[in-house]
């Protein structure tokens, strides 16, 4: 029982991080129908830029955070303008490949500038765990849980009530109709890429602080989170968050109970097994919009 509880709590806190990263995917997918395979590299970039601003330019934490977000906005805008916009209307394989190509380029830039060694990140918050009932929980997890909660509320309100948010949903529903209603589809795409880049940068900084350092392996999270977005449904903000928690718990339970049987590695593969099963039963995820099209 003790083990079960510990595994579930661990799963939930890790799940919060997954949710945060998954939100970056969902924001882009929701407005433009593109799955950004370079999401992991967005995390990496955010973390490294923050590190460079804090440790090399000696800027205090809060302005450094704002500067990083400004940089992420710029990165998102630039990528959308230079790389993604020419591909509007191209087949889906091209769009997948272009984001995969982008991820290679970003990884190369990061490696070229900062090398492959792990770099220590100055802690933004204290790393002392907090006693939550009987269990110690790392502070970073709580911060990420808090930021996920804030983002969930903010994004839900944004998509529901704000003008750009409604315009984004309209664009997702039908680009042609949105255009004819006077919505600039290009601006919407640019907006969603920059929001996603900022959310990812925040996630990257949180993760780097929790690990105490940053290196290339941070980008792997971009792939690990794919089952999360699929389980939740690619176009659902709530689904991404719930999916994150579900996958976090599943992964920890599988790891805790099955790893001794198989000798390790189950934790990594379990989300993908679940992914295949869910896709067979519910092809659009648990909360995704159903587009019925039988062939």
């Amino acid at each position: 029982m003790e083990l079960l509880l510990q595994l579930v709590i661990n799963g939930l806190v890790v799940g919060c991080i997954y949710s945060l990263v998954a939100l970056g995917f969902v924001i882009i997918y929701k407005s433009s129908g593109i799955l950004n395979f370079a999401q992991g590299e967005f995390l990496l970039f955010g973390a490294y830029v923050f590190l460079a601003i804090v440790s090399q330019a000696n800027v205090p934490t809060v302005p450094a955070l704002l500067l990083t977000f400004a940089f992420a906005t710029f990165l998102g805008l630039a990528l959308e303008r230079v790389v993604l916009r020419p591909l509007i209307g191209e087949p889906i394989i091209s769009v997948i490949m272009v984001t995969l190509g982008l991820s290679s380029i970003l990884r190369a830039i990061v490696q070229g500038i900062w090398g492959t060694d792990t770099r220590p990140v100055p802690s933004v918050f204290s790393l002392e765990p907090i006693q939550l009932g009987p269990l110690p929980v790392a502070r970073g997890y709580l911060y990420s849980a808090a930021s996920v909660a804030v983002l969930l509320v903010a994004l839900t309100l944004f998509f529901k009530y704000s003008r750009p948010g409604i315009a984004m949903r309209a664009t997702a529903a039908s680009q042609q109709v949105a255009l004819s209603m006077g919505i600039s589809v290009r601006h919407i795409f640019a907006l969603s890429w920059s929001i996603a880049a900022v959310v990812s940068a925040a996630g990257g900084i949180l993760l780097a602080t929790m690990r105490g350092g940053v290196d290339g392996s941070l980008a792997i999270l971009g792939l690990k989170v794919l089952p999360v977005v699929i389980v939740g449904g690619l176009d659902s903000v709530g689904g991404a968050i719930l999916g994150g928690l579900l996958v976090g718990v599943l992964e920890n339970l599988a790891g805790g109970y099955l790893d001794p049987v198989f000798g390790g590695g189950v934790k990594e593969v379990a989300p993908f097994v679940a992914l295949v099963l869910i896709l067979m039963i519910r092809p659009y995820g648990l909360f995704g919009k159903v587009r019925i099209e039988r062939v």
Partner: protein
Amino acid sequence: MLSGEFHTTYAGDMGIFETRRARRLLAVFIVAVFAVPFVATSYWLDVANRAAIAVIAATGLNILTGFTGQISLGNAAFLAVGAYTTAFLANHGVPFIVAGPASGAVAALAGMVFGIPSLRLKGLYLAMATLAAHFIVEFTISHWEQVTGGVAGISIPSPELFGYAFTDDRRLFFLTVPTCVALLYFARNLFRTRVGKAFIAIRDQDISAEVMGVQVFRYKLLSFAVSSFYIGVAGSLLAYQARIITPENFPLSVAIDFLGMIIIGGLGSVLGSILGAIFLTLLPEVLRLATSALAGSFPQLVQLFSPLKVGVFGLTIVLFLVFEPDGLADLWRRIRNWFRLYPFSY
């Protein structure tokens, strides 16, 4: 003097080779290719063998992704299935002539299993399902130690054919390249048949294909099977060439490389798979030559080589997608047409 084509029969129009001249040129080209092992160094023969293997795999992937329109991120897994089948069979004394096709068949079976989600899934979601296949196969091969040797890897004896042992890259060349040529010929021919045309119909409009009497699911599975067969045979040759294989030989980046090859070469074109595979195999070699030539004046370049390789790969893909979305095959066609009608280009 070259000029345009003029066919007077349907058979001529449907032919694999457009003109008799094209056939002769190809024959000359193939003879020239087989002269390579007598002049090239063993290093470049290794590159040539890897290129031939890549051509087979890229052609297989192009059958699935370029011709049938089903996106697969799981091809590194099918490559691994082929390679490990060969490793298992070869270590039990099965000769190449059986092990090679058997590896293809086992990979085809794996491909069909992971192709089942394509019954209901399209586009991105299918890409995700095949990505999951990659991780599941990777988990299996690193944990099924009795057969695969686990993370420590497994060694493979040299292949033998009619008493001739293919012990080094020079000899292996005579195994990889003929296999490659035969499979290419089969692929080119496939798209003149009912099956190949059904694949193309599914890619262009799956619902119309169904209406016209193509059994979509059956042909999708068949496409997964044919494609994985090619990739499995490529895996088999890869195992023979590498001699020792570990799960680290088959990371996700291999699958991305193959996708890059067909994007750069041209989706839905056999010629494109050849050009793309050779291009992406040679790219790191050219980069390596360039960096070692410039290392004297820019010593820091040597450390930057590995990020440079990754970055140039990504940049090539992005540039091709933005500026030349139909790939090298289309570029080649335009150049050829320009010369064909030169100097009167109208």
